[in-house]
C-alpha cells in the first residue's frame, strides 16, 4: 500500500510544477485581504528573483563541469584573480539587494499599523488552547482542539479538517477592522492565520498587536507556531468571518449563555449527573496531562488516581482548580470552565479510579464553586 502511495507521491512531486492547481497547494496562500495579498506578491517577486539567480548559478556550474573536465594535452589556466570583475559582481549583488529591499520596506510599513480597531480582541495563549476576549462586549471563551483522540490514534477516520478544528471558533465580522491584542498566560505561543498573514508571538508579560480586515465571509484556519510544550501540535486556530448581523447574534448568544449558566448554580444536582458532566469535562480538558486513567505523567504531571488531595482534601482541590499551582503546569480553570463544569470535574475525579473507595467520597456542587468565587471578591 505504501509503495503505491509513494509512487503516486513521487509522480505528484515531479508533475506538481506543471499543473496550476497543484502549484497552489504547495505555495504560500495568497490570503484573503489586501495586506496578505501584498505579502504574497512580495514573496513571489523575491522567489522568482532567487529562482533566476539560482538557475544562472547552477546552469553556469553545469557548463563548467562539462566544458572544463580534464582532457589530454589541455593545460589549466593559472590566473588567480581579476579585481575589476570581482568589484563588478559585488556591486551587482548590492544592486539586486537594494531592488529587493525597496518593495520589502514598503510592505513592512503597511503591515505595521497599530491603530485601534473597530473591534478589539484579546487573544491569550494557554497550554494548549486559545482564549478569546471581546474587549467591547465582555464576552470571553476558550477554543480547544476538537479532533478526537481516536482520530489522532488512527482508530477513527481522519476528516479533511483533521487537527485544524476547534470546539469554539473565533467569530469576527467582515468589513470591519479587527485588532488583535496577543499575549500568553504560561509559555510563549504564536498566533498564526496564514490567510490573514498574521503571525504574532504570544508572550507572557507582553501584549503584541496585529490586525486584519476580511472582505469575504468564510472559515480560516491556522495553528500555534511556537513550540509551547507537549501538545504544541494540537492547538489550532479557527476564525469564522461572518456578516455584521450574524456577528451581533453571536455576541448576544454568548451573553445569554452566560446568564443561563449562572442560573444553573442554583439548581439541585444529583451525583450521577455531575459525574457524567465531569467525565466529559475531564476528557476535554484534563487528559492531556493527567491521562485517561488518572495516572498522570509523573513527576511533571502528578497522578490524580490515589492522590491524597483528590481523595481527602476537597478544599485544597477546589483551590487548585480555581487558582492553579504556582511554578507548575497546572493553570487556573476559574475562567475557562463554568461553575457547573468545575464542580462536575472535581466530583468526577473524587469518584473515578477507585478514589471514592479510598477517600471520603465527598462531592462538590456548583454552588460551592460560586461561593468560593464570591468569597474571594
Amino acid at each position: 500500500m505504501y509503495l503505491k502511495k509513494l509512487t503516486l507521491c513521487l509522480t505528484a512531486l515531479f508533475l506538481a510544477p506543471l499543473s496550476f492547481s497543484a502549484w497552489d497547494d504547495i505555495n504560500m496562500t495568497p490570503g484573503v485581504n489586501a495586506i496578505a495579498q501584498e505579502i504574497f506578491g512580495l514573496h513571489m517577486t523575491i522567489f522568482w528573483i532567487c529562482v533566476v539567480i539560482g538557475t544562472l548559478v547552477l546552469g553556469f556550474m553545469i557548463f563548467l563541469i562539462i566544458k572544463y573536465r580534464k582532457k589530454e594535452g589541455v593545460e589549466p589556466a593559472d590566473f588567480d584573480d581579476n579585481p575589476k570583475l570581482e568589484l563588478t559582481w559585488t556591486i551587482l549583488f548590492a544592486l539586486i539587494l537594494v531592488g529587493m529591499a525597496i518593495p520589502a520596506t514598503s510592505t513592512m510599513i503597511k503591515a505595521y499599523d497599530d491603530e485601534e480597531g473597530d473591534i478589539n480582541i484579546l487573544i491569550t495563549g494557554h497550554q494548549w488552547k486559545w482564549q478569546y476576549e471581546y474587549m467591547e462586549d465582555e464576552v470571553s471563551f476558550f477554543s480547544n482542539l476538537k479532533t478526537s483522540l481516536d482520530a489522532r490514534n488512527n482508530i477513527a477516520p481522519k476528516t479533511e479538517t483533521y487537527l485544524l478544528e476547534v470546539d469554539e471558533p473565533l467569530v469576527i465580522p467582515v468589513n470591519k477592522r479587527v485588532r488583535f491584542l496577543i499575549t500568553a498566560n504560561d509559555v510563549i505561543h504564536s498566533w498564526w492565520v496564514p490567510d490573514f498573514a498574521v503571525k504574532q508571538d504570544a508572550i507572557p508579560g507582553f501584549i503584541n498587536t496585529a490586525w486584519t480586515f476580511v472582505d469575504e465571509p468564510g472559515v480560516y484556519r491556522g495553528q500555534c507556531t511556537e513550540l509551547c510544550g507537549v501538545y504544541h501540535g494540537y492547538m489550532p486556530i479557527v476564525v469564522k468571518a461572518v456578516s455584521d448581523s450574524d456577528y451581533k447574534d453571536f455576541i448576544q448568544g454568548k451573553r445569554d449563555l452566560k446568564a443561563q449558566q449562572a442560573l444553573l448554580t442554583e439548581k439541585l444536582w444529583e451525583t450521577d449527573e455531575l459525574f457524567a458532566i465531569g467525565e466529559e469535562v475531564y476528557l476535554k480538558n484534563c487528559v492531556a496531562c493527567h491521562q485517561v486513567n488518572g495516572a498522570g505523567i509523573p513527576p511533571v504531571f502528578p497522578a490524580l488516581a490515589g492522590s491524597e488531595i483528590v481523595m481527602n482534601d476537597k478544599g485544597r482541590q477546589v483551590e487548585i482548580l480555581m487558582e492553579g499551582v504556582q511554578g507548575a503546569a497546572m493553570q487556573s480553570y476559574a475562567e475557562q470552565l463554568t461553575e457547573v463544569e468545575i464542580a462536575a470535574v472535581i466530583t468526577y475525579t473524587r469518584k473515578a479510579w477507585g478514589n471514592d473507595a479510598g477517600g471520603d467520597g465527598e462531592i462538590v456542587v456548583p454552588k460551592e464553586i460560586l461561593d468560593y468565587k464570591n468569597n474571594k471578591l
Partner: protein
Amino acid sequence: MSAVIEGHHDDHHHHGPAKGISRWLFTTNHKDIGSLYLWFSFIMLFIGGAMAMVIRAELFEPGSQIVSPEFYNQMVTNHGLIMVFGVIMPAFVGFANWLVPMQIGAPDMALPRLNNLSFWILPAAFGVLIATFFMEGGAPNFGWTFYAPLSTEYAPPTVTYFIFAVHIMGASSIMGSINVITTILNMRAPGMTLMKMPLFVWTWLITAYLLIAVMPVLAGAVTMMLMDIHFGTSFFKAGGGGDPVLFQHVFWFFGHPEVYIMILPAFGIVSHIIETFSRKPIFGYESMVYAIASIALLSFVVWAHHMFTVGMPIAGELFFMYSTMLIAIPTGVKVFNWLSTMFKGSLTFETPMLFAIAFVALFTIGGLSGIMLAIAPADFQYHDTYFVVAHFHYVLVPGALFSIIAGVYYWLPKWTGYMYDESMGKTHFWLSFVSVNLTFFPMHFVGLAGMPRRIPDYAMQFADYNMIVSVGAFLFGLSQLLFLYVVLKAIFYGKKATGQVWEGAKGLEWTLDSPPAYHTFETPPNLESGEAKA
C-alpha cells in the same frame, strides 16, 4: 624540502605514541586528538541521525505513529543539540587539530595539554545530556533553542543537567579556540605571512574568534536560566518582572554567530578541494579572506532576524532585515570565486570534488532561501514553518556536513596512509546527493503551504510531501552507514597512498608522508626559500 623533514624522523623515533588506552586518554598529540574529535563526531552523527529517523518515522503519515508527543519533543530537541554541538562543531575542531599545524608548518598545537582537556570534557558533556533520557521527567523537550519560560518554569527537572552539559560544551569550545588562535598567530613557519596562510587556516582563525566572543554569551544565558530555576531570580519570568524576550535576544546573539561557526570552516575545506581538483589556484584569495571576515563581523548585528514575530518596533524589523540582506554580498562573492576557480581549470571528479561541488550548488539554494527569509514582512508567513527547517538543513546538511564528508575523503589518505575505495565513495556521494534533496527540498513546499515546525502530527494536506521527506530521510540515513563502511575499509584494507595523494594538491601537508610521522615539522619548513603561498 621533504628531504629535510625525513632526515628528522630518525632523531625522534623515541617520541612515538604510547601503547593501549593511555595513548588516547593522555595524548597531547594534535593528530591523535584530531582523530578523537573526528571519531567522536562520527559516533554522535549516528546517535543524532537515529533521532532524526525517529522524527521522520513519526511524521511518515498523519496520526500518532510510534512515539508520544512528549518523546517526539525530546527527539527534536536532542537531535538539534547533538547535531550542532556534538557533530558539526567537533568535526571541524578535529579538522583544525589535524590540519592547522600541518598546514602552517608547526610541530603541534600551541597548548597540547589544554587540547587534551578540551576534547575529553566533551564526551562527559554529552554523557550528561544523553543520561537525561533515563532520568525522571525525561530528556530536555523544549527545542534546541530552549526558549524561556518553556525551558525554565515549565521544563522537566532534567533541565539542570542540560545547563551543566551546555556549560561543559562551551568550556571545551573556548579552550579549543584559544588553542587554535595561539597556534595560528605564533607558530607559523617562517615566511608564512597571514595573507599567505591556507584558507582553511584563515576560516578557523576567524571561527575561533567568533567562538570566544559568543560562547560566554551562551553560558550567560544558561546561567540566568539556572538562577531562575533554582535561586528565585526573574530574568525571564514575566510574573517576577522579567522578560522572556530577553532570553531570545541573548540566545540569538550567541546563536547567529554560531551558525557561521558551523559554516566558515566548511568554506575553507571546500576552497582547498575545488582548487586541487581544478588544478588551478583559488580565485580571489584576498576577497575570500575579506568575505569571511565580513561575514563574521556582520554575524553580530543580524541576530533578531530570528525574532521578526516577537513584536519588535518597525525600526528594529527594518534594521535587522537590511543587515541580514547584506550577508548575501560576501556569501555571493565566495560562490562566484569558487565557480571562477573551476573556470578554465582541468577538472576531475573524485569523491571529495563531487561533495565539494554539491556543497556549492546546494549551499547556494540554502543561501537563496535565506534571502527570502530575510525579507521581514514575508517572514511573517515563513517563520517557524518547515520552510525554515528546509533552509537551515540545506545550509547544514548539504552545506556543513557535506563539506566535512568531502574533507574526510580528501584528507583520509593523508591521515591514515590508505586510499578509500573510489567507486564506493562515488556510490556514497550519489546516494547522499539524491536522498538529501528528496529529504529537504519538499520541506520548502510544506512550509509554504503552512506546516509549522516541531509538531508531532499534521493536517491531511501535508501528508503526501511528508511521506516523500521521510523516505528521503531513511535513505539518507542508510547512505551514511555506507560512509562508515568506506572509511573502515580504507583503514583496514585500503591501498597504500603516496605523500602527494592528489595530483593537484598544494600545501605543506602534502609534502609529508602518508600517514605523516607522529611528530612532524619539528624543524619548521622554510617558505622564504622557495614555496610561496602554501
